[in-house]
């Protein structure tokens, strides 16, 4: 034997490439595989003999690639000799999203829904409520997130802000000096446009004998293009001439009706005549820049000589907003580095204070105005975004709770559907088809819930708008809305259907059909976990709502230190100041008014903060300490209704009182004065004598610490006239009496008065919005959860009908049965409470962190919620439990 014969080459018979053969086997339809593979092999050998095996191999692969045609892949065999166009395809092995199958799934789903009406109602209703809440929250979030996006220069618009350090704390402010705008425009090429703007205030617009009080701004002329204001009618540069005014379409319509307003004249604040130069579209409600009209920036100097006198070149007074637009391609970081010291460089004369204050100018992009406008110690710390996130999470919670209902009800009913699954499997249904069926069922339910949810949203949106003070609408014409909605529905359907689909399809047909499965304890465990999750969410929401409510009440009950009722404030004007004494005399003469005074801010706000105070023993650094300031004249303490602690009010009997000051207790404490009355302080170098001390009155935020306050006597620093109404006269009568007197002395203005108690109540509007929203959401969460419990309990009771029957025959009372059925649920709710409490505690202490004046979270809240949750659970479950317990055992035991 020679070697060649004994060890024949392993590849003596040439073979086609194995990988191609393998792929061929994987890809080709099974009924075609035999002949196709055979053909390829045969061709390979024939070609091999003819052209050699290398070429044959290449051709094999080539042929294989050409075979990759859908017709030859995993396609079901077309039955030979079948009649054409048959409807009754053999669909047993069809992929599960085959159209025929889907029609079948939907048909069965519909039949199932109709068969179990109460179950369907609970399912669809619960899901619809959950989806509706999620949609409303979605709409709300969209509105918040899309704020200001309507400005075409959204990307390049910035607001100029400034950090400053006072008394060791770094604060951030929007208010900037008057010369800022011109300086930025003249010296920095980074800016395409710069517009300064005041804070806006109510001013009177008078045409003929019609008076209007509207809100608007003085604003630089660049603003028109910067904010891409839509000029409907009129001049393209309408703020160029100082005596012009731009109206919104709404204001123009209110004043001029259907006449063309362009070129018409109107009188502003009874002082200047302005020509209407343009009409622009009113800004959407979520825009930051809001106005009824705009006035040219330089009109200010012409109207108020103190601006020209004190502010034109003053870099020390910060009272105006500044908006800028960067040139394309300029990065804000570059600009920030350049403008950092704009203010500082102009303040060199008073080196000591300046060094302490360290003013640092920077720009804040428009994209962050709405949601990221909080600064702490010079760092951007977010802002309203936290509420957007909070409600986003709430929305998700509600949706999850609703989906859990769906899952629980479907799995609880699994015993009923088990037979169906068994038969389907026995007949030849694959698992994927069962999954397909259950998923299409849940998607169908989600779609029906969507329709219902849309109806709920449509009905509730007006109320929601009132609640949130917005004008939101469903954007039916926006394709994004529909895409999001459909994806969201599909997602909900898949999420809700996933567990039942996987669970039910895993049943073993033999077991089911042999004797009805006892899904038993192992199956109810995940359901229990889901109930706990659901109730944990609900309980967290409940605890949160109660704590928010307590916090609001806490603020509302805070002693304010002055008499808030029967106090009205009226916007002051030049005429009112001039005729103040006459006005005062006439008002007092009516008997409807007991006292009247002037001040620089309404009684519910303090608009001025000042530093530059020196007191006995103060260090030079302490000149930077900021005190809130109220400027007033005589009768302030009396009119506002403050009880003095020490000393007296400013009095006409003491001429020296014109350089007097009244402090609050916080200010006395800050200055560490032992005997404050009679003490001489210095304010910007001028002596001020303390004439009185008042308690800490609450004029600013009801949740913040009361800041040190100085009440200074200043004759003509007046923005408001405050009137104390005689308590023995009804306020409506009093208003009727005083209105003509104001009209007489203030002819250029409509009589616009504000009751300070209603103004004070507005301070809570924000917390109340949060409180109301979370109350509604937690109510709904509890409602949806209970809906789920109700459904679950009914199935539990149904499942145990026989057991209950036997128990009753053996002598169990109704109470026994009730306890038996409720026990499980009570356990679950208690567990949920235990899980929810620390979560809620943590979340709420985070929320409360922002408030200086706040409640302590009390243990009682948790106990109360536990009791409430148990009560609600028992109420929900008891109905089913007692119904089951009252059932006649004869009926339930009489067998099928």
């Amino acid at each position: 034997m020679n070697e060649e014969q004994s060890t024949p080459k392993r590849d003596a018979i040439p073979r086609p490439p194995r990988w191609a053969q393998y792929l061929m086997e994987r890809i080709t339809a099974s009924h075609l595989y035999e002949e196709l593979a055979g053909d390829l092999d045969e061709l390979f050998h024939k070609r091999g003999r003819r052209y050699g095996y290398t070429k044959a191999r290449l051709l094999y692969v080539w042929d294989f690639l050409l075979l990759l045609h859908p017709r030859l892949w995993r396609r079901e065999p077309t039955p030979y000799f079948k009649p054409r166009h048959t409807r009754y395809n053999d669909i047993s092995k069809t992929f599960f999203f085959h159209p025929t199958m889907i029609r079948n799934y939907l048909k069965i789903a519909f039949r199932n829904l109709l068969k179990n009406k109460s179950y369907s109602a609970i399912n669809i209703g619960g899901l619809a409520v959950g989806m509706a809440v999620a949609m409303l929250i979605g709409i709300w979030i969209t509105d918040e997130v899309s704020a200001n996006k309507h400005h075409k220069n959204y990307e390049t618009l910035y607001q100029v802000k400034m950090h400053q350090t006072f008394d060791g704390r770094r604060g951030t402010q929007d208010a900037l000096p008057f010369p800022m705008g011109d300086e930025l425009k003249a010296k920095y090429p980074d800016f395409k446009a710069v517009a300064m703007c005041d804070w806006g205030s109510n001013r009177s617009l008078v045409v003929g004998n019609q008076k209007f009080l509207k809100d608007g701004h003085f604003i630089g002329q660049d603003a028109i293009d910067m904010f891409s204001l839509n000029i409907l009618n009129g001049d393209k540069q309408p703020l160029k001439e100082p005596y012009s005014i731009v109206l919104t379409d709404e204001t123009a319509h209110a004043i001029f009706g259907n006449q063309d307003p362009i070129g018409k004249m109107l009188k502003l604040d009874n002082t200047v005549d302005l020509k209407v130069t343009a009409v622009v579209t009113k800004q959407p409600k979520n825009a930051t820049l809001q106005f009824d009209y705009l006035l040219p920036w330089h009109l200010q100097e012409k109207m108020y000589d103190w601006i020209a006198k004190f502010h034109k070149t003053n870099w020390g007074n910060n009272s105006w907003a500044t908006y800028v637009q960067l040139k394309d391609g300029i990065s804000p970081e570059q600009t920030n580095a350049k403008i950092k010291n704009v203010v500082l460089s102009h303040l060199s004369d008073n080196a000591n204070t300046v060094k302490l204050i360290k003013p640092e100018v920077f720009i804040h992009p428009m994209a962050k105005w709405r949601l990221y406008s909080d600064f702490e110690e010079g760092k951007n710390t977010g802002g309203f975004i936290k509420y957007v996130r909070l409600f986003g999470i709430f929305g998700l919670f509600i949706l999850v709770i609703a989906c859990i209902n769906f899952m629980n009800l479907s799995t609880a009913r699994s015993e009923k559907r088990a037979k169906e699954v068994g038969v389907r499997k026995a007949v030849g249904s694959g698992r994927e088809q069962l999954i397909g069926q259950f998923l299409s069922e849940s998607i169908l339910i989600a779609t029906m819930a969507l329709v219902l949810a849309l109806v709920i949203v449509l009905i509730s949106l007006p109320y929601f708008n009132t609640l949130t003070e917005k004008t939101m609408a469903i954007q039916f014409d926006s394709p994004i809305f529909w895409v999001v909605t459909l994806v969201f529905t599909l997602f909900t359907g898949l999420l809700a259907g996933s567990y039942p689909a996987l669970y039910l399809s895993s049943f073993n047909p033999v077991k089911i059909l042999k004797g009805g499965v006892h899904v038993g304890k192992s199956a109810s465990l995940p359901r229990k976990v889901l109930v706990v999750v659901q109730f944990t969410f609900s309980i967290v929401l409940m605890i949160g709502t109660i704590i928010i409510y307590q916090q609001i009440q806490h603020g509302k009950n805070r002693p304010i230190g002055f008499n808030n009722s029967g106090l009205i404030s009226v916007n002051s004007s030049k005429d009112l100041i001039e005729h103040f004494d006459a006005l005062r005399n006439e008002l007092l003469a009516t008997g409807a008014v007991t006292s009247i005074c002037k001040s620089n801010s309404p009684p519910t706000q303090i608009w001025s903060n000042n530093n530059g105070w020196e007191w006995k023993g103060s260090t030079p650094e302490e000149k930077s300490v900021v005190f809130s300031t109220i400027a007033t004249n005589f009768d302030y303490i009396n009119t506002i209704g403050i009880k003095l602690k020490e000393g007296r009010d400013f009095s006409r009997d003491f001429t020296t009182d014109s350089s007097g000051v009244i402090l609050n207790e916080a200010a006395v404490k800050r200055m560490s004065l032992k005997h404050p009355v009679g003490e001489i302080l210095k304010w910007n170098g001028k002596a001020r004598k303390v004439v009185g001390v008042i308690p800490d009155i609450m004029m600013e935020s009801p949740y913040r610490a009361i800041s040190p306050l100085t009440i200074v006597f200043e004759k003509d620093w007046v923005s408001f006239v405050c009137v104390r109404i005689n308590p023995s006269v009804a306020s409506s009568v009093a208003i009727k009496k005083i209105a003509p007197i104001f009209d007489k002395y203030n002819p250029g203005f409509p009589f616009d008065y504000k009751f300070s108690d209603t103004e004070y109540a507005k301070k809570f509007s924000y917390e109340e919005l949060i409180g109301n929203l979370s109350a509604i959401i937690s109510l709904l969460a509890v409602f949806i959860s209970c809906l789920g419990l109700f459904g679950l309990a009914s199935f539990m009771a149904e499942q145990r009908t026989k057991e209950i029957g036997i128990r009753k025959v053996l002598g169990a009372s109704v109470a026994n049965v009730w306890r038996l059925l409720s026990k499980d649920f009570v356990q679950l709710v208690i567990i949920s409470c235990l899980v929810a409490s620390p979560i809620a505690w943590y979340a709420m202490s985070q929320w409360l962190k922002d408030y200086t004046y706040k409640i302590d979270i009390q243990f009682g809240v948790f106990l109360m919620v536990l009791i409430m949750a148990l009560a609600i659970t028992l109420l929900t479950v008891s109905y089913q439990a007692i119904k089951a317990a009252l059932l006649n055992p004869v009926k339930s035991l009489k067998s099928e």
Partner: protein
Amino acid sequence: MKGTQLGEFEELILLTIALLYDDAYSVAVVEELAQRLERPMSLGAVHRTMQRLEEKGLVQSRFGESTAERGGRRKRLFTVTTAGEQILQEARKVRNDLWAGISKAAFGGGVV
């Protein structure tokens, strides 16, 4: 020629199946056609067409013997059905009629 349409390639394959009577299977059809048309023929195209012909009821198939060369796999043998024959006859008749109708002047540069 109402009803079922017959494409040119389908017609060729149907004819080849008839020609190869009793030994008409895909590889044979590919080789026969490739040789006659003098162009390479894709197995996939032939397969698809034969499948389509079968769906149209113009051919019918059965499994034939298996050979070692095919890796022990059987081949699918095709025969033309009555319907197939009919459609071929019709196609032929149409063509014959057309040929018969062509005037002599049409080809060969015409009569000068």
